[in-house]
């Protein structure tokens, strides 16, 4: 604080005592604005494999948008409305694309050993988002209010009952599954994906597996002038 009571810019380098100040300092140090919204990337970030993560996020946007329309109209609307059936179709196909992009992204990151250099949490959050997305999609299939959802509920109950959770995660209880599908699981997927993206931004894209300090691209000066490329240390 300065004499007028406002926060001085220079205090960020000082020892802060409030929880809020400490939290801000911690966040800004690990995720400065130029890392969060970069205008440049290392030269090796140049392959089609990198588009699949963004493709999965774009698909998730369509899943949420079409899901909001479906849920606002109720789970049986699409049986009696042409528009509803189209929205239901777009919900289905955005989910299919979401999983295709996510699986390719996951395999790509595996073959790149993308957990290297302190990026293990990025990998783990990616796997968790994949697993939670599977549960979310499963509950969606239970909400179709048609023959598919009847049969899936009948068949799936056995595995859930066998492990003792079928009474509380009752696949034949439409109200219960509706709550899981439109509130709890999307919230979980959204939070985990957001955390995953923040980790990617904070820690940067993993360099090539066989990159060496003698590589020309590391030893020669940068040819592109991009103001945001002076990143802090990767944590």
């Amino acid at each position, binding site marked *: 604080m300065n004499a007028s009571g406002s926060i001085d810019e220079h205090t960020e380098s000082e020892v802060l005592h409030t929880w809020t100040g400490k939290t801000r300092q911690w966040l800004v140090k690990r995720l400065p604005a130029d890392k969060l919204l*970069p205008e*440049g*990337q290392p030269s090796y*970030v*140049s*392959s089609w494999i990198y*588009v699949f993560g963004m*493709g999965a996020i*774009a698909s998730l946007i*369509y899943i949420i948008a079409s899901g909001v329309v479906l849920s606002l109209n109720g789970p049986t609307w699409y049986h009696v409305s042409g528009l509803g*059936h*189209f929205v*239901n*179709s*777009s919900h*289905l*196909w*955005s989910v*299919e*694309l979401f999983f295709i992009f996510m*699986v390719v992204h996951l395999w790509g990151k595996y*073959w*790149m*050993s993308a*957990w290297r*250099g*302190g990026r*293990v949490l990025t*990998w*783990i959050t990616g*796997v*968790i988002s994949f*697993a939670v997305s*599977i549960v979310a999609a499963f509950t969606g*299939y239970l909400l179709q209010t*048609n*023959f*598919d959802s*009847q049969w899936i*509920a*009948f*068949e799936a109950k056995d595995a859930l009952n*066998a*492990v*003792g959770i079928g*009474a509380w995660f*009752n696949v*034949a*209880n439409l*109200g219960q599954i509706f709550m899981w599908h439109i509130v709890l699981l999307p919230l979980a997927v959204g939070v985990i994906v957001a955390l995953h993206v923040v980790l990617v931004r904070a820690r940067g894209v993993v360099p*090539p*597996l066989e990159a*060496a300090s003698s590589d*020309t691209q*590391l030893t020669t000066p*940068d040819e592109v002038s*991009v103001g945001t490329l002076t*990143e802090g*240390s*990767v944590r």
Partner: protein
Amino acid sequence: MSKIPASVSWRSKDDIASRAWTGKKREYDLFKELTVGVIVVGVLVVGLSAVFSSPDEPSVTLKSWATAAPADFVATATAELGGTSGTAGYGAPYNNTPDVGQKLGPINLQSLSGVQIPIDTAVDFVTGPLSLQANPPQALSTWTAAATDQRASWTSAYTDALTKAPNNDPTQVAVGDYGPVPALTSSLLAMAQQGALDGAIQGEGGFFNLDYTRSILFLGDGAYFVGLADGAHLTGDQWGMMNETGNYPGQSWLWLFSFWYQVPVVGGAANADILVVGIMLLLTVLLGLVPFIPGLRTIPRWIPIHRLVWKDYYKRR
């Protein structure tokens, strides 16, 4: 290429993977890439939806079942009355049935939950709905007054008779001592064919009821519902839940879950569901922990697919 084996360690240390990149950079526009991604995926979603649509096979109702397969309906109703159906002997969380449920070693996980969704098949599926009719069948009072052993004797005899009847047709059953069972089941069949049974069973949960457990379990106890699923390649031995009706990809991401049921030593085990759920939980945890597992994390170095990913970088190094 470097002669030193590249590190695949997850640890942050003083190496290129851990340090901020200080080499060449390229321009990158995050929001532009997101915008392009949203447009491309949007075109794909709209295109796929317009061309392929989505499946929507109508629900099976107790009315449609009773109309299409009356013999199966009567046989199932008899089993519900006699307590010999799949649901009647299921155990937790629907009812107390001794020595059922899959075990993990000595632990019966299924029974640990207790009876949380109580279902008495004779009452909930047959006598309860019949009693709601304006003129309940006389046989109902005979059934209610009878001893448990007598009821079991009637339903057992009628089940045998139905099995032996031509086409299992209830109207062609041989004469025998079946007590009120034929009258009860034929009344229930009529009630179902009129469409009154669906509402009666669903209404057991009260005016507002989103729980379809009873209706789905009743359907599943019969052969008709399972036969429809079999015809639509949806049963467990047909890769089950990962499929959906019609020629659609379904939940293809459940392929590994369905796969284990096709492996005889797993799918044929008495506790197959526990085994499959356990295997999948374990594999999911292992996937998350790949960076910590020597061997699994080293495969990308042994099979250098990364050279395709970073071919431009390696070419210009």
